[in-house]
């Protein structure tokens, strides 16, 4: 039996199966934010590891094939950037400045706040890429010496904030420019923000996915600077 638990196929199959179940629950609850597939699947899989006495190290090794697909997904972010090249050209300056400012604010504020709270270095590092899309955040976290699992917690909270708080806040501020609304949601709340922005207005959605994709590149450049300065 324990030989079975060391087969990559076993854990890949279990992961896909559990995720499919979580997907169905999510759909049955009409995509309720508290019934996200990730939040349902992860505890179930943790329980499965516990019951089978499997270490996380062997699980992550077994599921390498699933994690591998994150790479092509990141590369594919070039497609939305390319599709919107005309808009990028016309708004180059405001987009560039807003991205630089937004990216820097996201990193410095979360890192600074965690530092003030006395968090250990590895936790501060894990939080830095919080505003980027999950696949990119995981790669940047690893590169900077963080823990991808902890990074995902920051990324998920960022996403929920963007999805729930952004639009009411902008409405209260009297901000009607769908470009600015979408861009801000994409930069701080990646895919969650973009999905909510699309529901609000197609222009906001387009700017949100652009903000998300460009922020992945800008944040990677900022992280590279950190690496070069010896973070």
């Amino acid at each position, binding site marked *: 039996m324990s030989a079975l638990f060391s087969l990559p196929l076993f854990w890949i199959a279990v992961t896909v199966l559990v995720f499919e179940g979580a997907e169905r629950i999510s759909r049955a609850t009409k995509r309720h934010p508290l019934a996200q597939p*990730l939040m349902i699947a992860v505890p179930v899989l943790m329980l499965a590891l516990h019951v089978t006495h499997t270490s996380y190290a062997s699980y992550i090794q077994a599921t390498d094939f699933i994690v591998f697909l994150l790479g092509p997904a990141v590369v594919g972010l070039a497609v939305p950037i390319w599709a919107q090249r005309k808009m990028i050209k016309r708004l180059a300056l405001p987009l560039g400045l807003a991205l630089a400012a937004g990216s820097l604010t996201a990193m410095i504020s979360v890192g600074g706040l965690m530092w003030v709270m006395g968090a250990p270095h590895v936790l501060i590092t894990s939080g830095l890429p919080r505003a980027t899309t999950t696949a990119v955040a995981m790669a*940047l976290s690893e590169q900077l010496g963080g823990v991808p699992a902890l990074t995902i917690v920051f990324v998920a909270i960022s996403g929920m904030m963007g999805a729930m708080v952004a639009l009411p806040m902008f409405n209260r501020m009297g901000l009607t420019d769908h470009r600015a609304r979408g861009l801000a949601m994409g930069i701080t709340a990646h895919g969650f923000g973009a999905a909510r922005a699309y529901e609000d207005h197609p222009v906001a959605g387009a700017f949100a996915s652009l903000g998300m994709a460009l922020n992945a590149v800008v944040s990677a450049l900022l992280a590279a600077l950190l690496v070069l300065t010896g973070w």
Partner: protein
Amino acid sequence: MFDALALLLVCQLLGEVIHRLAHVPLPGAILGLLLLLLWLGLVRKERPKLGAVTGWLTAHITILFVPATVGLIDEGSVLTRYGIGIAVATIISSLLTMLVTVAVFRWALRFSSLPDERWEEEL
């Protein structure tokens, strides 16, 4: 289907090579993204299949995060100690980031050719 997938994989592979050989401190996949952008600019043609493959990956990406997130199983002590701090820091950081992004974008718009809302018809 496979030509689009091959394009993504080759870009990532070249990105990894550059990352390792030239010690560029960017993840291979991000370098791959930049290479793909370059390729799309150099070889201009309609690419419906590339859009289909990246669209499929994006639509089903959540499952790719599952194995890493299960890693929280080993982070229980960090989460009990700093969980609330993580939430507070992330919430404040999110609000700040949105306000700064909006303020800078709106301010810098005055220097662009599309400063007001007329742009909407042009999309």
